[in-house]
């Protein structure tokens, strides 16, 4: 397998171009939840993709921040997918999304207390044990100030990685959006980030929330990556070295060729150390 450079979030409407794509270093990321079925065309499509490209399974529903252990049925389904497609990477979020049998389709925040740290460490360990492999945990986007933090997010993630053995997924758009929304400096945040633990980087576009007159940025994945995010990304790669980098796009999805163009910018930087 050649070294992974820049990848794309896979959209089913791009299946033919994705299968035909022979760009060096390209890889594709999917949400495993969309493929947790018994059979049929979805799984067949994923099998075909896995034969052509390295895959990354990027979960959105494990709820690692819950005060209870991850759902064992969900972990078993994830394990079956991992065994089936042998992904290059598996990742999840530092967030919670389930409560007493209810699923909240979002990535919700919680106070980064020591109690929470111990809980997330245990949940990550259970996940890694169930999958038989290391996962990466992503920094989320923030929209509200949460009281009761005992840890900064960067320290929390570094300690989580140290205690559980997991890696980190650094979403630089999330850093940009959260720094704007909560009023901190994105460069200071990145300076404090444990880059040596980063297994994967995410880049995406954001939207300006109309209802709050621009005071909030939304991690909407429906626009090209912003120049400010590209600039943060270049600084991260310069300091930490190249890492597999994903361009996420979930809304207002352009053609595959347009996404490949955007991806080539990251690919170029990873290969040659400069923004094309």
């Amino acid at each position: 397998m050649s070294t992974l450079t820049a990848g794309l979030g896979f959209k089913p409407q791009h299946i033919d171009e994705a299968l035909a794509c022979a760009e060096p270093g390209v890889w594709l990321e999917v949400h495993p939840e969309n493929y947790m079925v018994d059979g049929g065309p979805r799984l067949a499509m994923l099998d075909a993709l896995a034969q052509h490209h390295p895959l990354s399974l990027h979960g959105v529903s494990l709820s690692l921040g819950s005060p209870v252990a991850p759902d064992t049925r969900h972990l078993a389904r994830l394990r079956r997918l991992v065994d089936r497609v042998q992904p290059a990477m598996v990742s999840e979020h530092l967030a919670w999304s389930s409560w007493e049998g209810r699923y909240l389709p979002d990535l919700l925040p919680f106070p980064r207390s020591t109690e929470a740290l111990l809980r997330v460490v245990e949940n990550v360990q259970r996940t890694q044990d169930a999958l038989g492999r290391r996962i990466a945990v992503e920094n989320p986007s923030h929209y509200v100030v949460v009281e009761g933090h005992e840890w900064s997010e960067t320290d929390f993630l570094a300690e989580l990685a140290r205690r559980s053995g997991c890696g980190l997924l650094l979403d630089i758009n999330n850093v940009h959006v959260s720094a704007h929304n909560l009023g901190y400096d994105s460069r200071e945040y990145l300076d404090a980030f444990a880059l040596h633990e980063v297994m994967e980087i995410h880049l995406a576009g954001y939207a300006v929330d109309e209802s709050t007159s621009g005071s909030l940025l939304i991690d909407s994945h429906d626009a090209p990556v912003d120049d400010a995010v590209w600039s943060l990304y270049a600084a991260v790669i310069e300091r930490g070295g190249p890492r597999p980098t994903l361009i996420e796009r979930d809304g207002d999805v352009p053609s595959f060729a347009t996404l490949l163009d955007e991806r080539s910018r990251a690919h170029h930087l990873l290969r040659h150390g400069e923004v094309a």
Partner: protein
Amino acid sequence: MSGLADYQRRFLHALGDAESHFLPARQAGFDVYRNTTLRAGIDALEANFPSVACLVGRDWFRAAAAAYVEMSPPEDPRLMFYGDLFPAFLDAAEQTADVPYLGDVARLDRLWTESQNAADDIPMPSAMWAELTEDGLSSVTVRPHASLRLFRSPHPAVTIWRASREGRAVEGELAWQPEHAVVIRAHMQVTVHDVGAPCLMFIEACASGSTLAEAAAHTHRFHPDAAIDRILAGCQLAGLFVLAHGETNP
């Protein structure tokens, strides 16, 4: 209750309470979470019930979906399976009294999704059917293909469903009579076949472990006019059956 659990319980409560005094909920950004969790549920229903959405129009659908999300929020993170109670919800909704078939159209959408994502299975090959002798019929048991789903409606819901899926109006005058169907993904594509009540009875008899001959006799008892040979040929052509395990080949 731990601090983490208590926080999440209060967070969840505040998502559904616009007047909440929970501190994060008093910030403008909290609406991002309210909107995202609600919209994801509505979007999933719109994706899972496209025929209903096409019939009633986007605004009506999303209003009904929002009410459903509130009443029966998602439990399974696999949102393509969200909405198992949505057909019954539509049946019971006051606003659907003049469209009594709407729940059944939703049921057919649901069966389509189930069939689409069911386990892969290999239909009994036609060569095997061709070799079936009369002795074979009385000894062979078949089981339904893993993706086979049966549908019955007292309304012409199959015709309405099909027109809606194809984004067109029902052609000609709609005959107001019961309609039944089988939903099958014999190969990678889901197909909905119109069938009669005798065909469904035959399939159910086979599924319960009867031999083909017993299933035929059972169906004939309740539907003396049923053309069993045509039902059998139709089932074969559509790939509805798999040879049951442990049976010798005919």
